[in-house]
């Protein structure tokens, strides 16, 4: 059975007990993203704070309907980016995107990705990559709106 390579225990834990779930106030930007192939959806809010002259992620809150992969992915995301400078959080997002598009390839960088390395197995299933990216794309979009920069290229 190859299932365990995708459904790592950490993913199932986050799915059953999601972190930082629920929509909170105040927030600087809110987005609603949908995966049109399956109807999974996430409403996600970000709050930005100033950390020594540079924007940082104060909070990410969300409400989501979806499969284990999309739910666990947004939960792991919140653990990784809350409290980080936006620039560092964006680097993590870029690394995660690269991992998802690597297909059997590159060793994920655990120093950057932390728990998110467990999603490496998802990259082998093209149909599920969008599930893993749903929350990340929403977060990137909301953060770009909150700090007033144009959105990134991966919409």
């Amino acid at each position, binding site marked *: 059975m*190859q299932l365990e390579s995708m459904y790592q225990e950490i993913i*199932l834990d986050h799915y*059953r007990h999601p972190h930082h779930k629920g929509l909170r106030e105040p927030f600087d930007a809110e987005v609603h993203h949908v995966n049109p192939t*399956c*109807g999974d959806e996430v409403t996600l809010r970000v709050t930005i704070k100033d950390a020594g002259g540079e924007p940082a992620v104060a909070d990410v809150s969300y409400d989501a*309907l*979806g*499969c284990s992969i999309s739910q666990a992915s947004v939960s792991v995301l919140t653990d990784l980016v809350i409290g980080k400078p936006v620039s560092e959080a964006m680097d993590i997002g870029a690394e995660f995107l690269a991992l998802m598009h690597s297909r059997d390839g590159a060793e994920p960088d655990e120093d950057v990705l932390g728990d998110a390395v467990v999603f490496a197995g998802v990259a082998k299933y093209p149909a*599920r990559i969008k599930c893993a990216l749903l929350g990340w794309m929403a977060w990137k979009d909301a953060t770009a709106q909150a700090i007033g920069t144009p959105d990134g290229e991966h919409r």
Partner: protein
Amino acid sequence: MSIDVARIRKDFPILDRTVRGGRPLVYLDSANTSQKPRQVIDALTDFYERHNANIHRATHELGEEATAAYEGARIKVAGFIGASDETEVVFTKNISEAINLVAYALGNVAGGRLRIGEGDEIVITEMEHHSNIVPWQLLCQRTGATLRWFSVTPDGRLDLDQADDLINERTKVVAFAHQSNVLGTINPVADIAARAHAAGALVLVDAAQSVPHGLLDVGSLGADFVGFTGHKMCGPTGIGVLWARRELLDEMPPFLGGGEMIETVWMDRATYAPPPHKFEAGTMPIAQAVGLGAAVDYLSELDLAAVRAHERNLVERALHALAEIDEMRILGPTVPVDRGSAISFTLEGVHPHDVSQVLDDRGVAVRAGHHCAWPLHRALGVQSSTRASFYLYNTPEEVDALAEGIRTAQKFFGVT
């Protein structure tokens, strides 16, 4: 009355392969696209190896052969659906194009008495595939007509009590599925068509899910337009069909302009070829049409009533097996009456994507999502579902593999 499934399976080379590290393939996704018999694959190869040329314009022997094969496929399709006149069969690339062709023609100023405008109403249903929703939304946006729809009852049937209100003197088109791609529900076409015709409306039937099972006879159906697609009926992708009554095709303006759909062309105007060629602009999917003809031959050689009986047995077995699973909700009719061979379900505690992933790991191919019927899922109060669909080559053992896989998914995700 029975069919030899083991013999039929030998005709489908793909059913021999394994998936996911050696698991035998259990293909339960035929409502999405069917597998192809050797006879169809050979027809495509033979066409490209022996007869390939453009049709209706090549003045050489290959061109004659290609044209004869293409037009021969049209005659076969006409025979298969009970059409007495093959010029009523228009080839398209799929059913989406067939429905768009009609919706576009009816919104075109050149449409004459068929033209739709402000104050007119189009009636569809909540159980439609997106391909029988969005073209009508676009038509209404272009013309100012109003879109209305039948609701679906909790047990997955059309709420026909709404017919008197919905179908009235303002109604210009009533468009609906012969068989739901999600629920399996078979709709009472003749009944709805009679009401629509009494009100002076045209009737379009989406037969994508019924034609593969030999359920379509346009002579008795009562529809004015019928669309279906080749790839769900053992044929290739890239070829679909619009059948329409000839006098409607005569009146309708062309959909796409281009080569082969013309009679004469000047710099400022053109006249058009008679149907069906008026609607077949540009080089058509010729080999695919020939392949569809081979698919029709293949199906016609079977006892289709026996095929349907076989499929009904599979559905009955599946409905029983699924009903015994805890946390299971079957969407649509739970009895095999007026219902085809697609079964969609939800499982409390396990998302459809995760159900299908576990099934896939065991070699069982199903579909998860909204199956291009998002409004229907919303109406039934579910976000998405898992769908298993059965066809002539499926076996009772494969139904059992489905049920066993669902139980495994429940165990894996800790639901039972």
